């Protein structure tokens, strides 16, 4: 079932001034319920602009966006409700923290939803648990947290609204490898618990290969490819033509294969690579 669908979506920045610039052009995509989609593309390829249409923050210059087959702009009063259903985590979300305690900051979204105090604190606890923030931290000021903790608190602020669709714009930017894995795991955990649809905008092919099932490739404001991870990453040549790349581990395996080593194609993650190599060595061992 389609959860988000766009129809000839166009967006032009600064329409009607000499600075006008097309950000996205003719985007027609259909996102199925429960999908985990990685959105990749260059800086300025229109990824962030595209995802801000999904919760009605940006209004299309032309074209339509549908959420559950309903035009998102059909009723301006429903726009706020839509934002609770399509949770958007911005780039560097830690800069949006503002409240006195982490707890009330995470509760900002649920409070705006008009939930009861009990429900709010219940949701705050649940969200904090998913992102691994201790109850002790919840009582602190958000400005006293470390960078990684702030990022997770901001993520929790969106998760606490229990959105059906979770959109994340570069959630791992500027984090160390440990922090990056942690955030990705937490996103997967939320999806497992709620069955939410997840859209992950990222620069990192590794991140996308690790968690996503489908990949949407943006280039110059247009959708270049939209397919499963396997199919997109098997088109390495085309990706490098638009200045993108397949994950490092895939590159290594492609080179190995070119050298005549008997490995399979389509190795995108470290886990798979390890299994592949173990299988290979076992086979070679038997032959020797």
């Amino acid at each position, binding site marked *: 079932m389609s959860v988000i669908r766009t129809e000839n979506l166009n967006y032009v920045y600064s329409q009607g001034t*000499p600075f006008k610039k097309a950000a996205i052009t003719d985007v027609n995509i259909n996102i199925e319920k429960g999908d985990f989609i990685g959105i990749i593309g260059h800086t300025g390829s229109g990824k962030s602009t595209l995802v801000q249409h999904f919760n009605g923050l940006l209004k299309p210059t032309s074209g339509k966006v549908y959420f559950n087959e309903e035009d998102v702009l059909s009723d301006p009063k429903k726009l706020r409700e839509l934002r609770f259903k399509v949770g958007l985590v911005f780039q560097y*979300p830690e*800069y949006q*923290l*503002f409240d006195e305690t982490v707890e009330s900051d995470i509760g900002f979204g649920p409070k*705006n939803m008009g939930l009861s105090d009990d429900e709010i604190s219940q949701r705050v606890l649940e969200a904090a648990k998913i992102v691994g923030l201790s109850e002790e931290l919840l009582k602190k000021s958000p400005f006293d947290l470390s960078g990684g903790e702030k990022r997770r608190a901001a993520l929790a602020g*969106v998760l606490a*609204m229990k959105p059906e669709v979770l959109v994340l714009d570069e959630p791992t930017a500027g984090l160390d490898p440990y922090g990056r894995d942690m955030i990705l795991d937490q996103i997967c955990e939320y999806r497992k618990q709620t069955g939410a649809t997840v859209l992950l905008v990222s620069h990192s092919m590794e991140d996308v290969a690790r968690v996503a099932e489908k990949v949407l490739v943006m280039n110059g404001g247009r959708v270049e490819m939209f397919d499963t991870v396997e199919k997109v990453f098997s088109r390495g040549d085309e990706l490098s033509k638009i200045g993108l790349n397949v994950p490092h581990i895939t590159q290594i395996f492609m080179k190995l294969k070119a050298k005549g080593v008997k490995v399979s194609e389509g190795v995108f993650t470290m886990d798979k690579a390890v299994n592949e190599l173990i299988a290979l060595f076992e086979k070679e061992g038997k032959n020797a």
Partner: protein
Amino acid sequence: MLRDVTFGQYFPMDSFIHKLDPRFKILLTFGLIIVAFVSFNFYSLGLVAAFAVLIMILSGVPVKFYLKSIKPILIFVLITAVLNIFYISGETLLVEFWIVKIYLEGIIRAAFVAVRIVLLIIISSALTYTTSPTSLTDAIENLLKPISKLGVDTHSFAMMMTIALRFIPTLIEETDKIMSAQKARGADMETGSLMQKIKAVLPILIPLLVSSFRRARELADAMECRCYHGGEGRTRLKVLHASYRDAIALISSFILLSLVILLNILF
């Protein structure tokens, strides 16, 4: 949206006005504003208006942007004009009802004031549209040099202005971003009572304040890392030079001034 704020925005181009020495531009802007305010009849004011239009055309900045810069103060212009209509008394009574008396002199006076304010905005917009913030502050520092002899730290003053101007677009962008982020969490800034609206601003104001402090600290560190120590002994990458263009601008301004004085006396 906030992005559409135009007043004080630099418009990079390569026109005659752009190439004028910013020091001259500042002085001439002040000069022109004074001339506009000493024009006492329609002939001289019309001449100044024609000169302003000439500047607008020479600057190469689309006229639309000048109109945009007038828009925000339109209400102010109207209020001033209306007040003038009601308060100025003269000889030719046009309308009289209850305690209100409108004289022809009042209407003329109102038109005068309105045109003057609009000219003032156009002339000062021409300055900011054609001069980058950095050259503007460079020029101000240069013009204030005599005061620094008296022990006033004009360099720090100019540097503070440069930084403040430099960060306006950054802060606008930041505000936009934080606003979007809070809206994505359902923040409601349009509806509700006044108290609720004030409260609704906090989720935007606090992050903005926090990040301004962070930016200020980072900038101070970066400046110190590059051995910034104030104005003493500091040389410039771009040294300001006056050229033949400035002479043309200066001479035509003097001609304008003499004509305005002449017209004031004649009519």
